[in-house]
């Protein structure tokens, strides 16, 4: 039986009488976090080898995510973990594709595409893959545990998007530049790169919001109080940035992204829409790529 077939035929995860459903989600999230963490960071303990350039770490994350998803789908005892494992797969598997695409594109086209086109293709594929998993999970599951991400657009959500962006930019600017490695970006760089990288970062924001504040938060919310669900998705969001920053410093980016995840989750809940989080996330992605990463890496 394949995983998708298993999901299709899987009944709603059983809830033992007298036992809260949030415990199953908490257990599943802990199991996924532990397994992904070991797979990501464990090989760094291996001696006398260079972890950079020869370490396809995203593949390990994909393997762990698939294995846990398959286990939850196939084993009746583990089935209560299935909703969270689907949400985790929606986070991890598109990331694996995102990580592998530059390597694949170089194999196919050499260096012809260049950095900006490669980034655009990478982020477009990332968004499409996330959307595909969310849609597939929703269609295949047809179960009571699935909840669609909130995608409604309203004046309130548009206003909230604007206010969120303003608030985050102001907060970010107020943090000392030495702490976050913020860099002044010449206008030339923005005008040169934004036509391709702007839409690319927007797509990346769509993918991550769909996965974290969409699939994962909605899944956790069905059983746990909002604060607990929000904390769960924000923690995973922060820890996921250890993988995103695998070859760079993580001591500042992880706490910052946990706080960001909490804020975006709260805005999503208050407005009933993913759009404010998507817009704020896209603006921050642009700011991070241009203004922060070079500083963090000491370039």
């Amino acid at each position, binding site marked *: *039986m394949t995983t998708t077939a298993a999901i299709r035929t899987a009944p709603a995860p059983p809830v*033992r009488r*007298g*036992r*809260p459903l949030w*415990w*199953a989600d*908490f*257990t*599943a999230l*802990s*199991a996924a976090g*532990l*397994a*992904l*963490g*070991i*797979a990501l960071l*464990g*090989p760094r303990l*291996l001696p006398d*080898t*260079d972890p*950079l*350039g*020869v*370490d*396809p770490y995203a*593949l*390990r994350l994909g*393997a*762990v995510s*698939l*294995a*846990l998803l*398959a*286990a*939850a789908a*196939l*084993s009746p*005892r*583990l089935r*209560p*973990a299935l909703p969270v494992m689907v949400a985790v797969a929606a986070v991890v598997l598109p990331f694996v594709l995102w990580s592998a695409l530059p390597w694949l594109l170089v194999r196919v086209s050499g260096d012809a595409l260049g950095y900006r086109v490669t980034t655009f293709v990478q982020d477009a594929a990332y968004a499409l893959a996330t959307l595909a998993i969310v849609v597939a999970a929703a269609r295949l599951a047809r179960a009571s545990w699935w909840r669609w991400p909130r995608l409604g657009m309203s004046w309130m959500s548009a206003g909230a998007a604007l206010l969120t962006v303003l608030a985050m930019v102001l907060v970010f600017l*107020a943090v*000392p*530049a*030495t702490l976050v*490695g*913020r*860099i*002044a*970006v*010449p206008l*030339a*760089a923005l005008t040169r790169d934004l036509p391709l990288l702007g839409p690319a970062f927007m797509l990346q924001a769509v993918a991550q919001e769909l996965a974290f504040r969409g699939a994962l938060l909605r899944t956790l919310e069905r059983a746990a109080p909002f604060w607990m669900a929000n904390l769960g998705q924000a923690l995973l969001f922060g820890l996921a940035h250890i993988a995103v920053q695998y070859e760079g410093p993580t001591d500042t980016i992880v706490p910052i992204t946990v706080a960001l995840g909490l804020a975006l989750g709260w805005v999503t809940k208050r407005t009933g829409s993913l759009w404010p989080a998507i817009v704020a996330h896209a603006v921050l992605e642009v700011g991070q790529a241009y203004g922060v990463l*070079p*500083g963090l890496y*000491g*370039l």
Partner: protein
Amino acid sequence: MRRVAAAAALIVCLLSLTAAAAPATPPILAAPPATPAGEPWWVPVGLRGETVTGLTAHGDMITVTASGHHLVSRDGGRTFAAEASPPPPALPTGVDAEVRSGADRWALSAGRVLRAVGAGGLSPDPGAPDLGRDAHLLAAPAISPGVVVAVSDAGVVWWRNGATGSWGRALVLLPQSLFVGRPAITALSAFDEPVSASIYLATAGYSTLLSNNGGQDWSRAGPGLPDSVLSLASDSAGQAVYAGTTDGLWVHHLRSLPAIPVYTGADLFNRRVGTALITLVAILAGLLVMRFGLRSRPSAA
């Protein structure tokens, strides 16, 4: 559970095969000469505690302006002596900066970039931007004919494409906050002999940056150096770059960049096996947490 274990084993096998197919990283091309083993990127030369604002260097001869005094060293910076009289002005009247690059002479005058080919006179370089009347920073590496970098009096860095002669704004990333503005660019330097294509840029607040593509992109190159760098000089004879800072005079000797090690398949075998085992352990740990966690859920009460 048997099916789960089989699926996990299959995934780990696939992972191992994919890892085995991953290519080894090629080495970064080595370039310049040997440097004393273990020497830091920047090394203090002397005059610690002094503010070095003016600087020229050629071999063992170094002249500096330190805390307002003109000093000269004839032993590579080991000792300095006060100059009896200040050095004569090095630039003709009306010229704010001048550099030589092969057969070309480049100058900055009243915000305009001028060029003289061979023994000819200076004439405006077509397409050069107006850099403002106070612009005075200019560099042109001799190894890259036609490549020029200049800084406007507003702090914008411009670079000239050596092949086409066109000018563009450079990508220079400097830290900034709401309360502290962008650091000022204080000096530019390139080698006047065909030694290296690197161009160096000094800032008061973000140390030095270097460009290896003719000034188009810049990256920070100041490990160990004080943040406030006020003057720069490239010494082709000594294959070194000197930096005058608020804490004395420092030197960087040209060297190849640190290269990433290249591993053979045999070197990586143990790592791949270890990685596959760790992945298997990670999966088992996740399964165990799920299994025992779901079995021992607390009661709703």
